[in-house]
């Protein structure tokens, strides 16, 4: 048992290292270094993905990083993160700003600080055409999604009798839908739109107009990093005012966008707080 005790202590120690406190003013550090390190996705089409021609990470999130770095007058360095690693990477100080399709919510806000909402989407479903007219049609069914997201939580709330089955990624989830293993798949519309856009037999499926949650995306920063948060928020508002934010949106998701079409609707970066932020 003694050895197990030591093993346990060693584990705790390693776990503790991950959370080493790091004091300082990140904004000043960034300016001193001359580099803003951004954590971005590298395989999320439209937001952060590798451009086949240039072999560089590009997308909506990346453009926001570049705009913020430009405003700071520093260079930008992109670092790939995943849904699972983005918060640990941020806390450990490996990235300064996490721009990676991250939904703002109260639990996450306990760990990190969020900027104003810079992208707004909602959780919807992909179903076989004509099978779902209203939310109740999904009750009691098996519904697929991918891990590491808030999608499962929302689906459970909206559909208490449905079985939610989380896959490693959206590709196997969609395969399960094609094979009839799940009745629908659910996640943010911004991701669903791309799945449907790239599916070979897209005419068989649709995204019914049923929205079960609001998904405001925020840029993540370390907790208590007030100077940086204020700087980023000011920059975001300015980008909206000048029309840069809308241009970036249209560049990727407009009718002739590089990625796939999404409707921006009435969304504006206006610094409006979520209900739990007040």
């Amino acid at each position, binding site marked *: 048992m003694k050895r*197990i005790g030591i093993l346990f202590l060693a*584990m*705790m120690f390693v*776990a503790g290292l*991950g*959370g*080493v*406190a*790091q*004091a*300082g003013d990140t904004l000043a550090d960034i300016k001193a270094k001359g580099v803003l390190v951004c954590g971005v996705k590298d395989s999320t089409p439209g937001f952060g993905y590798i451009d086949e021609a240039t072999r560089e990470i590009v997308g909506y999130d990346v453009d926001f990083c570049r705009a913020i770095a430009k405003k700071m007058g520093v260079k930008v360095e992109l670092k790939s993160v995943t*849904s*699972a690693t983005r*918060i*640990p990477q941020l*806390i450990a*100080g490996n990235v300064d700003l996490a721009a990676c399709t991250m939904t703002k919510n109260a*639990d*996450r806000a*306990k*760990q*990190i600080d969020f900027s104003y909402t810079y992208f707004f989407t909602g959780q919807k479903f992909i179903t076989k055409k004509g099978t779902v007219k209203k939310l109740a049609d999904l009750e009691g069914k098996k519904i*697929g999604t991918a*891990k*590491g*997201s*808030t999608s*499962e*939580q929302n689906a459970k709330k909206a559909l208490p009798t449905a079985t939610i*089955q*989380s*896959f*490693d990624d959206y590709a*196997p989830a969609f*395969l*399960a839908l094609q*094979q*009839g*293993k799940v009745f629908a798949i659910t996640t943010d519309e911004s991701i669903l739109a791309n799945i449907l856009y790239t599916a070979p037999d897209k005419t068989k499926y649709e995204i019914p107009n049923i929205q079960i949650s609001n998904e405001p995306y925020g840029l993540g920063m*370390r*907790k*208590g*990093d007030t100077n940086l948060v204020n700087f980023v928020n000011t920059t975001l508002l300015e980008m909206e005012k000048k029309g840069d934010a809308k241009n970036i949106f249209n560049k990727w998701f407009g009718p002739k966008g590089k990625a796939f079409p999404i409707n921006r609707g009435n969304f504006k970066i206006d610094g409006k707080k979520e209900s739990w932020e007040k």
Partner: protein
Amino acid sequence: MFSYHFDWAIITSGQYFEWILSGVKVTLQLSVVSVALSFILGLLIAVMRMSNVKPILWFSHAYLEFFRNTPLLVQIFFWYFGSYKILPMVVNDWLNTMNFEFAAAVIALTIYTSAFIAEDIRSGVRSIPKEQMEAARSSGFSYLRSMYYIILPQAVRLTIPPLINQFLNLIKNSSLAMTIGVAELTYQARQVESYTFKGFEAFTAATLVYLGLSLIITWLVTLYSKYILNPMGVR
């Protein structure tokens, strides 16, 4: 200032604790069913592998090499997604109404582990002097009966230590079932992490459960071989 706040309470009570608990339950179900089935299947393959009938020998050989030398993850995907193309639609529709992801995980874990178990048992059998088989056969036992009454009971005892390894591996391998959406322990730990960002706490809990399970099994088998298999303490 930017420190990580440990919050062990989230995994010791409340909703997230229940998730971890339900994950433990599914991991146990997966493991118990697969351990039992893979042991039986492993025995069968081991006996086939030592048969003198050529086609049976070839089949068991191919089985062993194929399932031992392909990744378990691929096998899980094969049984879950790949079977769709082979099976008739009626069967697929029926499977889809069942808890097929659990069944697919059990099939994959059972077949994968049985290949290793078969090899362990075969090496156990080979360590039994061949005179015992000869004596059994000349006393009028058929091949299968000699195996069943004389050889295997001795071989399985010798094989217990490597078998424990296979069973421990199986428990840990069962975490791969989360890739097809079986809500076992690792799945639930990851779910807790993505809801709360308390990854250290969630995975520490999962690690301790795996460690605990493995230690309990090792301990039980040690007791079993000490008091049941060898009650006189003869070595």
